[in-house]
């Protein structure tokens, strides 16, 4: 078994030689691919700071063995904005002050993007709160986070509708 994997990271296909089978996606991104935007808060799947999208789904990258994700398409916080144009979730996080120290923020934002793609919460604030509960914010920015997710979702739905029309 070769310890080499193919990943698409933020739109770029890369072949990555892994120097150790133990490497998680989180440590791969942070320590080897110079993508430290994804944060390590607990390293045990208990805080959500390391949330990334893998094949469009949000997961905790700290509990993902990189070798096992051969072939995956990964989106991290660094790849979310379109150049200088912020993703609607990013813009809404600033507007609603949905962050304080900012350490959990990349995970919150990626989780919110995943949530909106899942399409399960709709405009129900309670469902958003539940669906965002895998991302701990010790500063307590939850009210702004919920507002930001709802607003971004409205904007994304409207944008998609415009594009479909």
């Amino acid at each position, binding site marked *: 078994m070769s310890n080499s994997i193919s990943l698409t990271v933020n739109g770029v296909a890369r072949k990555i030689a892994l120097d150790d*089978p*133990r490497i998680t996606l989180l440590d791969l991104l942070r320590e080897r691919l110079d993508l430290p935007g994804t944060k390590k808060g607990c390293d045990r799947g208990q805080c959500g700071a390391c949330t990334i999208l893998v094949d469009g789904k949000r*997961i905790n990258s700290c*509990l993902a063995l990189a070798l*096992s994700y*051969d072939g995956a398409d990964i989106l991290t916080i660094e790849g979310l904005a379109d150049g200088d144009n912020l993703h609607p979730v990013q813009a809404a996080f600033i507007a609603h002050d949905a962050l304080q120290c900012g350490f959990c923020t990349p995970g919150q934002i990626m989780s919110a993007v995943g949530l909106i793609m899942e399409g399960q919460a709709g405009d129900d604030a309670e469902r958003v709160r*539940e669906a965002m509960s895998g991302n701990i914010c010790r500063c307590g920015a939850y009210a702004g986070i919920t507002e930001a997710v709802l607003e971004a979702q409205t904007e994304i739905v409207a944008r998609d509708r415009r594009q479909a029309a």
Partner: protein
Amino acid sequence: MNSFEYVRATTIPEAVNAASAQGAMYLGGGTNLLDLMKGGITRPTRIVDITHLPGLDRIEWLPDGGVRIGALVRNADLAHDAKFARQFPAVAEALLAGASAQLRNAATVGGNLLQRTRCPYFYDVASACNKRDPGAGCDAHGGDTRLHAVLGWSQSCIATNPSDFCVPLAALDAMVEIEGSAPRTIPLEEFHCLPGDTPDRESVLKLGELIVAIHLPSAASRFAAHARYLKIRERTSYAFAVVSAAAALRIESGTITEARIALGGVAAKPWRARAAEKTLAGARPDGAAFRAAGEAALADAQPSGENGFKIELARRIVIRALKLAAAGTPERIPALPASPFAAAAGVLLHA
């Protein structure tokens, strides 16, 4: 985390063969295994990655109306499968009450059956634990036992099984399909072991054996109109159960024809409460009947430490889960799945 040999299996026989060596473990979603490895609780010498095995990520509806859930189906995908959630609402609700959205996207249903206890003495490698280190003793006794078992425990181990998913599965007669030297399909209820003198033996799986699917029989969908999962937690979400219960009823002409009850967080396995179910057969779905069922469900319960409150709590959750089931499965899984704050009547909180 110790280093290990990584083997990516491409066929089931290859996987079984690779995992039949001492020290080998299967890797599915990794949400529990990597956590255990990082804590030094589990130190496999070989990881057999089954996530690339073909065909195990499907939900198949069988001709008889039952369903075969591939072991690699992710928890979230199963919960959000519309047909599955309609037929087996308590299972979907339990899935959504577990962990977080991120973990549910990664965790597999097969792996969920092998999820290990959250007993802090099991996790703390400096503590004596018969489960981690057979014969070492159990430091949970006399320690922090608030959340430990009240049913089926032994002197050697008082840990509980943390799964939500397995609770309604046990209630609904789920079957576990196992590949290995002797392929077999066994009831989930017989899959997990009580600790006895061998708490390290948590399931009937033998070395190398692989869960390939979980089956729910078509009979289980006959409870769909009256099936709930309820979970008591110490925060509103993203917490393990203090106790939980699945209740499913068949009610005809105002009479319960069949009841299913299982409890979570009370024992080393999902606890099917058959005695309680019997008390309900033929009864009217009312408070008195449910109270009797609650009493029966916990008749054998014993505190394993400072956790006597869990017995009363479990009694009450059986009663409530039955009440909720009798009231009818909601159209959609509540915003706070399985929560006492699910606000069945749709109470709106503030945005």
